[in-house]
């Protein structure tokens, strides 16, 4: 099977590598991550609605730290997955899509789409700085939705090419 361009391969490997690093941070640096998140929450008391009441504030702190860890966890799982999706989908594009311009468009859509997991990192940080609702809104509006849409459109484009009947290849390839 033909391989995709180097830049696409590079992005796929980088996304998988950062997904692995994210997993390592989650497990090995969990106490440090929790402490750092708690410090960020304490530095933004108004954003998180801290009242000074220990019981209430502890609950808010726990929920927000949990949201941050969830964002990191989602980043880890999705980065591992989208890196692989990019690798295999781009290989199919390289092997079955004939027109060069269309190949380029599909590579671009799929490669940009593979960066989708960054939305969960944005969410994890934004939740701490700006609060849960604003964090979700920012991550969804500016990262998850556009990048996710890019991946979906790229995959639909690939599916359309695969579904169409192609004339038999001329000897010697393209």
């Amino acid at each position, binding site marked *: 099977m033909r391989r995709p361009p*180097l830049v696409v*391969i590079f992005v796929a490997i980088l996304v998988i590598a950062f997904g692995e690093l994210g997993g390592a941070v989650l497990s090995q640096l969990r106490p440090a991550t929790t402490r750092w998140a708690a410090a960020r929450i304490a530095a933004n008391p108004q954003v998180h609605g801290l009242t000074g009441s220990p019981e209430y504030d502890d609950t808010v702190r726990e929920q927000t730290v949990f949201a941050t860890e969830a964002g990191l966890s989602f980043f880890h799982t999705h980065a*591992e997955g989208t890196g692989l999706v990019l690798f295999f989908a781009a290989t199919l594009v390289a092997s079955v899509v004939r027109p060069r311009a269309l190949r380029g468009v599909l590579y671009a859509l799929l490669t940009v789409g593979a960066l989708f997991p960054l939305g969960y990192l944005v969410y994890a940080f934004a939740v701490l700085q700006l609060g849960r609702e604003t964090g979700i809104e920012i991550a969804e509006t500016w990262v998850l939705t556009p990048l996710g849409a890019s991946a979906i459109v790229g995959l639909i484009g690939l599916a359309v090419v695969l579904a169409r009947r192609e004339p038999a290849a001329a000897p010697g390839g393209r």
Partner: protein
Amino acid sequence: MAPIDTWRLPPRGVLLAAVLLLVVAEVGGASMSRYKLELARWARTGMLAHPDVHGLVGVRDVDERTLDEALFRFDAGLRLFHMHAEGMALVVIASTTVVTTLARSTLPRRALIFLLTVGGVGYPLGYLIWSALIPAYGVERSKAIAEWLVWIPFGGATILGLLWLAGLTGALLARR
């Protein structure tokens, strides 16, 4: 040297290891549902045989909560094994294919394939070991064992291999 436009497959042994890991992952997933009761019973029997390890005090209400928590972790370890084995097998196939195609020098190619294969296949086994040791050693101690024996060395090998591969691919890109 002209760039290679097609993927070169990694050594057959690497592919076999990845496929076997996939098989074990799938069988593991199937076993988790088919033998859910038997596995829970086995784990529970093991925990009851080691009351000191699990802090069992002989009071039913207290002990049931402790046992439930440990059984939850036992089940979680099996699920995490299933998920990670499925995923890491694909990571091994994809990454070693990239290495075989792009790494021209023998020594880096072999080193990368070794790191990625051994790391990728070994890492998920840590979850299986964690679950298997919970009845006898308790949740935290078995986690520490799995961490130092498996997750850190094998996970570290995989991360090192992937970052090295990313660097190699980036260098090739920069050279163009």
